[in-house]
């Protein structure tokens, strides 16, 4: 393509997307007016989600294509800036958009591992992979493994690993889609999953990477606007400064002072907290005592205990002037009494743990690695750093991100495009910790100490929607809210921010649309990666290399449909929790791809045997460790060096690097052709260069 047509294309894109952004803001304003006119909230939610989903489908239809390069890599003419936006949307998932603020709210400094990991990984992408993959210029990541190491074996392992980690990750995204659609429209979860899926398919089915790219740019605009508006508002409310990223340092100081006051029993607020905590300590002790007696007493004692609980409730009812709340609590204790020993053990263990957490002093938000003693704190530090490394390397190895850098016009633009990606991603990640602190300030100063008879409206509204997200119970019966009496789910922070800052419902709908955009854009990229690995790497490269273009695309689209429907089916079974799926996906990607990809570029001596050993070894070690240590699988083997299962990838990575190096050194050097390929990807345009780039 000549320079002037590309220049024309870029200016055209800029014009279209500026118009689009303006139009989107106009749409939000229009809905705000509708809200003032009295249109009900549910209706606004429907219009908002419906309009955005139609928009994505519309872009998909406009970008339909039957050209192979357009379908797989958007014609390799996506300018750096726009590829940056698309990558940012591709990258930021439902977990980032909705979950991260809550993680930071609940775990303070230690939660920053996610912020660091999910941004710092792009340094590795930029320095070690993106320009070289672009120079190589094929369609998929297994393509690179196949060409660099030769033969179908490295390619097949690559395909297997790409499908494994993308499928795990896509389930987490579709889960998020189902959650948002069901919460904001009232549809059932399963239905929500398939509605969301419909829009993903309409988009990627017709236009492949080309459609996904231009949709993702549109989705980035929506998700960043949706994140910024409520946070800026909250910042103005608490600091008078519309730049939350700058303003929240001083809010953090106030939060820290407030934490100290609440932890100090000498202050009036601290005394009330101490009172509630003492009640929780008592509950913890009761549960622990029961557990202890249960271990020796078994069935017989459990039956006796049940008798005692029933008698206590009966006695309470006949006592004159008994408190109605106490009677209700006693009745609940009877109704919820565990049926057998196993259930009792589980229920009381849970009760003891929950009470223990509530009875502990408030952890300081900004303090790193809080532990009861030095060893515990050191262990937290070790796990923090391991998680950061795992997430970074996983970032630099997830195939759906790496393929995006095949779509730029040149190596130079691939490098610039990583810069734009990271800049757009940082814009959100720099705001998330600010939101966590601002929300914490709101809760600690406005909610704590308020009276139960006049709770802020967002508290009662969300408590009515979902008890796990928000519940306040007057534990010490003083009519005033104490911090230990509040139970909050992490996802609430982002979802409730518009209401906490006192914004109209239309902003809540905007946040839902933003969350949906984040989940859909990531799911789009992942599904395409899986389908392309199957159609391009397995079918075209291994089964039928002479297949016609039309046939390749048909197979591709058919597989996309099959993969999407099976992913939606698995999701509707609600397997495990989102954080587990995300952790598994990152660790698997880090272990399987990173060593073979990086050494493939930087170490000429790396050969096929090494790559096979490294990839299989890395994947094997990582899967083994996660299978034996994640409580979900029920094996519960001891941890290696105290590293939590979510960071299991660091063992896989180590095994991967060791495997590639040892395997390569034990076998013959790669042949001249391979070495030339390495030279080819290293230099942007050397003399006598070989050609690997497909159209």
């Amino acid at each position, binding site marked *: 393509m000549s*320079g002037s047509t590309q220049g024309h294309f870029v200016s055209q894109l800029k014009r279209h997307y500026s118009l689009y952004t303006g139009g989107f803001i106009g749409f939000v304003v229009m809905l705000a007016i509708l809200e003032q006119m009295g249109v009900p909230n549910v209706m606004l939610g429907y219009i908002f989600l419906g309009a955005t989903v139609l928009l994505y489908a519309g872009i998909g239809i406009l970008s339909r294509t039957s050209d192979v390069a357009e379908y797989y890599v958007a014609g390799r003419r996506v300018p750096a800036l726009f590829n940056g936006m698309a990558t940012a949307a591709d990258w930021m998932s439902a977990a980032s958009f909705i979950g991260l603020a809550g993680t930071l709210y609940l775990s303070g400094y230690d939660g920053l591992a996610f912020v660091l990991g999910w941004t710092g990984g792009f340094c590795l992408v930029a320095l070690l992979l993106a320009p070289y993959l672009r120079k190589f210029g094929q369609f998929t990541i297994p393509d690179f493994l196949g060409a660099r190491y030769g033969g179908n074996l490295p390619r097949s392992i690559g395909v297997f690993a790409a499908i494994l980690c993308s499928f795990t990750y896509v389930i987490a995204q579709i889960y998020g889609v189902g959650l948002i659609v069901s919460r904001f429209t009232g549809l059932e979860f399963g239905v929500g999953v398939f509605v969301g899926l419909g829009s993903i398919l309409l988009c990627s089915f017709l236009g492949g990477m080309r459609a996904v790219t231009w949709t993702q740019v549109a989705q980035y605009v929506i998700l960043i606007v949706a994140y910024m508006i409520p946070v800026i508002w909250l910042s103005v409310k608490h600091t008078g400064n519309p730049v939350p990223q700058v303003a929240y340092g001083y809010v953090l100081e106030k939060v820290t002072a407030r934490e100290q006051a609440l932890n100090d029993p000498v202050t009036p607020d601290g005394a009330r907290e101490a009172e509630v905590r003492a009640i929780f300590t008592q509950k913890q002790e009761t549960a622990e005592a029961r557990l202890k007696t249960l271990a020796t007493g078994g069935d017989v004692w459990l039956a006796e205990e049940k008798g005692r609980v029933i008698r206590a409730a009966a006695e309470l009812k006949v006592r004159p002037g008994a408190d109605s709340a106490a009677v209700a609590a006693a009745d609940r204790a009877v109704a919820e009494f565990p049926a057998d020993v196993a259930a009792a053990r589980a229920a009381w263990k849970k009760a003891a743990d929950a009470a223990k957490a509530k009875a502990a002093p408030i952890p300081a938000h900004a303090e790193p690695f809080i532990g009861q003693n030095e060893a515990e704190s050191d262990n937290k530090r070790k796990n923090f750093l391991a998680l950061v490394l795992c997430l970074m390397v996983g970032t630099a190895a997830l195939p759906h991100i790496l393929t995006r850098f095949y779509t730029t016009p040149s190596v130079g633009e691939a490098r610039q495009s990583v810069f734009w990606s990271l800049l757009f991603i940082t814009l959100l990640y720099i705001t998330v910790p600010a939101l966590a602190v601002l929300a914490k300030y709101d809760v600690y100063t406005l909610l704590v100490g308020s009276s139960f008879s006049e709770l802020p409206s967002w508290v009662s509204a969300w408590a009515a929607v979902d008890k796990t997200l928000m519940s306040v119970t007057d534990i010490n019966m003083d009519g005033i809210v104490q911090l230990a009496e509040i139970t909050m789910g992490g996802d609430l922070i982002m979802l409730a921010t518009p209401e906490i800052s006192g914004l109209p419902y239309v902003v809540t709908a905007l946040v839902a649309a933003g969350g949906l955009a984040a989940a859909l854009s990531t799911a789009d990229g992942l599904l395409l990666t899986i389908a392309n690995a199957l159609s391009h790497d397995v079918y075209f490269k291994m089964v039928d290399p002479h297949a016609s273009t039309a046939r390749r695309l048909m197979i591709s689209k058919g597989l996309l449909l099959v993969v999407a429907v099976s992913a939606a089916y698995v999701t509707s079974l609600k397997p495990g929790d989102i954080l587990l799926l995300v952790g598994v996906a990152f660790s698997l990607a880090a272990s399987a791809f990173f060593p073979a990809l990086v050494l493939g570029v930087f170490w000429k001596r790396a050969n096929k045997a090494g790559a096979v050993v490294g990839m299989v070894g890395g994947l094997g070690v990582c899967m083994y460790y996660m299978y034996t240590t994640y409580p979900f699988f029920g094996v519960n083997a001891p941890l290696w060096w105290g590293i939590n299962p979510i960071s299991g990838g660091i063992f896989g990575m180590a095994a991967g690097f060791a495997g590639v190096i040892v395997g390569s050194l034990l076998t013959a050097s790669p042949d001249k052709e391979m070495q030339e390929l390495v030279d080819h990807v290293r230099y942007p345009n050397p003399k006598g260069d070989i050609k690997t780039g497909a159209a």
Partner: protein
Amino acid sequence: MQSTEKQRQYWKKNLRLTGMLLAIWFVATFVVGWFARDLQSLTFLGFPLPFYMGAQGALLIYVAVVGYYAWRMDRLDREYAAQEGER
């Protein structure tokens, strides 16, 4: 294709730049993280320093690292006239 002296120089410069930037990345992330508890008493814009680094400082450093790499390599490409032709 035999790699020329010019190409070896280009690659060596690239490696040196990459190594240097990776070192900055490593210090901003892992060294600061390792010593987070010891740096807790220092403050910056109202933040304790380790929190600031984790929530903002390191991120800005990453952006700078990636941006500088893109700019510097672009210049290096031109110096070595290795710039890819538009296709």
